[in-house]
């Protein structure tokens, strides 16, 4: 069994009644929308508009408007796809892994993480769709009975696996997130003053009453979903990694990729969670629920994962040398560590393997600004990691005659900025309209915050999430 004091208090500040918890968490929904929100939203929408324009150009003019070529056929689109998917890993990782590890402190963060997951996976899904030469025929990927024979799909293709995995991940993480919110919507429905809000949230609460029958099935559902989604967390990014690992490209064709990608995804996801959580803490005064201890815990996880990342990088390089394959050797030693793309490699290495080591220091972990900046750097480093994987391997592969450089075009950059805008707009909407913290779960753990655990009899002491 756990001891809550390992992580410090779960809820800071004065002792809160249940009703206070509801009110404080739901405050942003009823509060006047702050000015900065409109500003941020406007910027996000502008970014999104640029992205929409880029997509429009891509659809009407063609992928030729990008910087990709016959040698480097995947560019920013795939880098960004993997990056977003990685970020999108945090939600499920938080909910599932921390649930399995019985970490109570996740309750304050998992809602935000899951929301971020859904938005990030949406952003991610846009890239493979739009980078298709004929994206309007994307439905060819579905193995549906058709009038062509029927002509099925290629079950060997990692892209098909990817397609299945991403759609599954999107659907599952979205429903996981949503069903987690149903009791909170019900709270909103029953406590809000606005008629419209009551109606809307009432609709979204799907008829939740909080009866014991509902809670019972809800618990069962959480148990089942949690159990299988844990597999998903590992499988999705493993499958994304097979896009690379199952190919013959030097630097891609490696069995290290699945664990490396999964860990990397959790790394970037946690970093993004940290970014968001620090923002929530500052902007929405959720400091009582998201305590320094929470930030500290995430930072500790990050420092651990960072070590794994560093090991992975070094392993890759070692294997490239040890394998004796001249192609692998060239890719790692002449096109990553040195060569045209050395900057990207070292940016990755420093941001991901070295910088997070600062988290060993408690002082750093407790300084919100430093944590925030490091989390941004990790996000950046993870982007560079994907750049390294995608571009360096493609640009110089087997036949030197076809070696070519890759430079992103404004359309590609615009597309990426567009998804950043979409992400931030999504997150802003989440801040504004959805309970940022899982109210019922916080209420449930709030009792562990109090010192009056005497009431609980040993026989009754269960874990029930």
């Amino acid at each position, binding site marked *: 069994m756990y001891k809550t004091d390992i992580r410090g208090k779960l809820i800071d500040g004065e002792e809160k009644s249940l009703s206070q918890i*509801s009110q404080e968490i739901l405050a942003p929904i009823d509060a006047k929308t702050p000015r900065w929100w409109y500003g941020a939203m406007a910027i996000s929408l502008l970014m999104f508009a640029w992205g929409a324009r880029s997509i429009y150009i891509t659809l009407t003019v063609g992928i030729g408007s990008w910087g990709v070529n016959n040698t480097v056929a995947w560019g920013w689109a795939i880098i960004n796809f993997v990056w977003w998917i990685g970020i999108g890993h945090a939600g499920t990782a938080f909910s599932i892994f921390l649930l399995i590890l019985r970490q109570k402190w996740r309750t304050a963060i998992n809602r935000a993480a899951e929301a971020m997951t859904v938005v990030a996976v949406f952003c991610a899904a846009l890239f493979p769709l739009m980078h298709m030469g004929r994206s309007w025929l994307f439905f060819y990927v579905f193995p549906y009975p058709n009038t062509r024979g029927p002509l*099925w799909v290629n079950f060997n293709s990692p892209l098909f696996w990817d397609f299945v995995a991403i759609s599954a991940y999107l659907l599952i993480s979205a429903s996981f997130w949503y069903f987690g919110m149903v009791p909170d919507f019900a709270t909103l429905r029953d406590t809000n003053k606005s008629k419209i809000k009551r109606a809307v949230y009432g609709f979204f609460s799907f008829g939740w009453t909080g009866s014991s029958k509902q809670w019972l099935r809800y618990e069962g559902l959480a148990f089942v*979903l949690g159990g299988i989604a844990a597999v998903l967390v590992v499988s999705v990014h493993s499958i994304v990694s097979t896009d690379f690992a199952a190919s013959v490209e030097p630097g891609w064709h490696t069995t290290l990729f699945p664990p490396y990608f999964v860990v990397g995804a959790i790394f970037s996801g946690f970093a993004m969670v940290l970014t968001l959580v620090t923002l929530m803490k500052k902007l929405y005064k959720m400091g009582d629920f998201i305590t320094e201890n929470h930030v500290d815990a995430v930072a500790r996880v990050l420092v651990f994962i960072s070590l794994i990342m560093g090991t992975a990088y070094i392993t890759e390089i070692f294997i490239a040398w040890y394998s004796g394959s001249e192609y692998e050797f060239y890719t790692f030693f002449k096109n990553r560590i040195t060569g045209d793309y050395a900057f990207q490699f070292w940016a990755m290495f420093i941001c991901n393997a070295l910088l997070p080591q600062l988290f060993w220091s408690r002082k750093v972990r407790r300084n919100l600004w430093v944590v925030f900046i490091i989390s941004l750097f990790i996000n950046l480093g993870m982007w560079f990691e994907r750049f390294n994987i995608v571009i360096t391997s493609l640009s110089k592969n087997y036949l030197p005659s076809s070696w070519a450089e890759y430079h992103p075009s404004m359309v590609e950059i615009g597309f990426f900025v567009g998804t950043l805008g979409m992400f931030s707009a999504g997150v802003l909407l989440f801040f504004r309209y959805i309970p940022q913290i899982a109210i019922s779960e916080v209420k449930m753990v709030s009792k562990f915050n109090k010192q009056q655990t005497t009431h609980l009899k040993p026989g009754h002491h269960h874990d029930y999430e």
Partner: protein
Amino acid sequence: MIMNKKYLVGVFDSEHTLIDAFEKALEKGVNIEEVYTPYPIHEILHGMKTKTRITYAAFFYGVMAVALLLGGMYYAAVVDWPLHFGGKPFNTFPSFIVITIVATILTVTLLTLFTFSARSKIYPGSKAEIIDVRATDDKFIILLDQDKMNVGKPEITELFESFGASEVYEKETEKTA
């Protein structure tokens, strides 16, 4: 068909008082209609004696999905229209595993969700049968059907109040049967 029902509603302020009252009432043989709480309380779920077989359903879905997926892929790739890809045999079983895992998870999740929705009546447009609106905020509600509660009303009121119920009131509502 619409008929009116009379209920007795006990309102509690804390989980502990609720559990105590709940267990006492059960001891006394009170037939408790339903308990509404802001978060799940295991003692209650246990005490209400309702069981969920959602986990079994999920397992069944999983088995079904694995069989269907493997069968479907085998049919599509080997039986219906075998195509040569990269010198591999038609039956590329290892490739099928990947899809089977993920698609099974998806199927299980979705079907379990639908099952949950159907059984718990949690679906878009479903109407909440709210007994006391505070039950989703900070109150713990015990609901008793006056026709079926086995024990007299004053007795129960006294019992609840003795365990710290903040309020006990009667409620008459229509219920579609």
